């Protein structure tokens, strides 16, 4: 009792009640109530019906398409993002500031706009698509097209996670490695990469989670053929347009669970990595 009183006394800054009240009211209206209604509605679904919905061949195929394309796009972005962050932090060259500013374009450009532009560019008569059509490769309306759209969406995540860590890295370690006779490749893998690995991984998982749920840019380029280029968010959308809320919610629950798992795995690896680092230091 005494202890509680003393902690209360240390709160000298005024305005807690008002700011907390406004925060909780808005949070409640925008996030908590809608989330609760999702939970309430999901509980009412019969488990047998739920399993029947999510094991429909078309739904299973859409999960497959979503996972494969999101993973491929996040993997490409993990590679390119690492290179981009490296180039932007370590090298000086003309146009660097423009390049740095451009990275955020996918955040600023509406996804639907990006979607129609990428689709038109990659159809068989498009500027890029016609070049690939000569080689016999179709991009728009195939899985490749979906991956291209998702790469566009995911560009900033890895770059922006890795960049600050690289900037803060002490050059002493690299110098020490070089003095000890490490070549550039070995220095990179043994000294630099372990340091940026947690940030790199969290960038990858964020990009992956974002790509799994992406709708606006993919819907145009995918062609939306069932079993081939139909992504899970699109199936949810189709169910909603038929006012079949039970099916839509069932399919959405699996997606929510998947992205929750991805973020959880990331959090687990992050905490292990930070333990590892602090264990050494």
């Amino acid at each position: 009792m005494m202890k509680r009183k003393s902690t209360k006394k240390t709160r000298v800054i005024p305005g807690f009640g008002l700011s907390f009240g406004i925060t909780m009211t808005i949070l409640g209206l925008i996030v908590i109530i809608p989330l609760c209604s999702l939970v309430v509605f999901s509980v009412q679904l019969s488990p047998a019906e739920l399993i029947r919905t999510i094991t429909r061949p078309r739904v299973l195929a859409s999960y497959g398409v979503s996972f494969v394309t999101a993973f491929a796009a996040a993997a490409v972005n993990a590679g390119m993002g690492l290179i981009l962050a490296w180039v932007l932090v370590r090298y000086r060259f003309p146009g660097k500031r423009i390049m740095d500013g451009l990275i955020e374009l996918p955040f600023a450009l509406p996804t639907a706009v990006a979607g129609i532009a990428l689709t038109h560019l990659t159809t068989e008569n498009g500027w890029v698509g016609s070049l690939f059509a000569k080689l016999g490769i179709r991009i728009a309306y195939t899985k490749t097209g979906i991956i291209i759209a998702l790469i566009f969406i995911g560009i900033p995540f890895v770059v922006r996670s890795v960049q600050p860590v690289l900037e803060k890295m002490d050059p002493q370690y690299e110098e020490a490695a070089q003095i000890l006779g490490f070549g550039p490749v070995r220095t990179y893998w043994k000294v630099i990469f372990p340091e940026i690995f947690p940030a790199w991984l969290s960038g990858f998982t964020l990009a992956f989670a974002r790509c799994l749920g992406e709708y606006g840019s993919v819907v145009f380029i995918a062609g939306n053929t069932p079993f081939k280029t139909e992504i899970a968010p699109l199936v949810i959308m189709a169910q909603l347009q038929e006012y079949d809320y039970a099916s839509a919610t069932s399919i959405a629950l699996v997606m929510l669970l998947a992205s929750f798992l991805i973020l959880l795995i990331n959090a687990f690896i992050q905490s292990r990595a930070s333990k590892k680092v602090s264990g050494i230091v």
Partner: protein
Amino acid sequence: MEKTEKTSRRIFRYFLILLCAVFLTVMLILPLVYIIATALREGFSAYLAAITDEYALDAVLLTLKAVLWALGVNTLFGLCAAWCITKFHFKGKKVISTLIDLPLTVSPVIAGLIFVLTFGRQSFLYDGLQRMNIKIIFAVPGVILATIFVTFPYISRELIPVLTAEGTDEEEAAALMGAGAFTIFRKVTFPHIKWALLYGVVLCTARAMGEFGAVSVLSGHLRGKTNTMPLYVELLYQGYDFTGAFAVSSLLVIMAVVVLVLRSVLEYKGKKSQERNHYG
């Protein structure tokens, strides 16, 4: 020996820079150029006609309305949430910050779905809303709610790290000298978060303008009534009016470029003012 290693390093460096330049040009700049080129391919007058179309103007107005709502609600929320999370100790802070970040991880389509479940026919709120004659789903309030939801964490996420870094010393000093909450906020806290707040506002505007998935679920797609700019672009595109679709898109491209320029200016100013606070 030394020399060959140096040249090979230089070649490697040029190769990486070139790779990045090509990647960004193809993935980011080419789509922008393509949008502008297609918007203008039937001449400037066709372009003007497309963007001054009655329905296009309605879409612009609705988008503005949704953006203003999202900005108002999220700024108020961001300031209050950042203030009470960083200046006070209380239980459940972690839960609150997780809930704030939640809209970032939810797919836009699912965000739309949960609002349909909240206000739609199967909801317990439905009868009450019906009696009061309030329409949310497939109407303008739904569009606004969806926009607020998807941009929800943008401002608070910018403010919380800055305020955490500043600590509570200055506010405590001001409070002990007898200043009220609003005076402390205005004179002590606000100068620190000015640039971060503006930065958050810019990000929030960009995202609010462009939201497609969630708005698409909640909008009834009524031309001139519940169509925002991205939805109007989709409508034109699906009607094979490519010039029109790309013309309206070009407006959003211009906004995106403005946002990017503002972003780098604000980031620069924010860094400078933080440095001044730490060393000055």
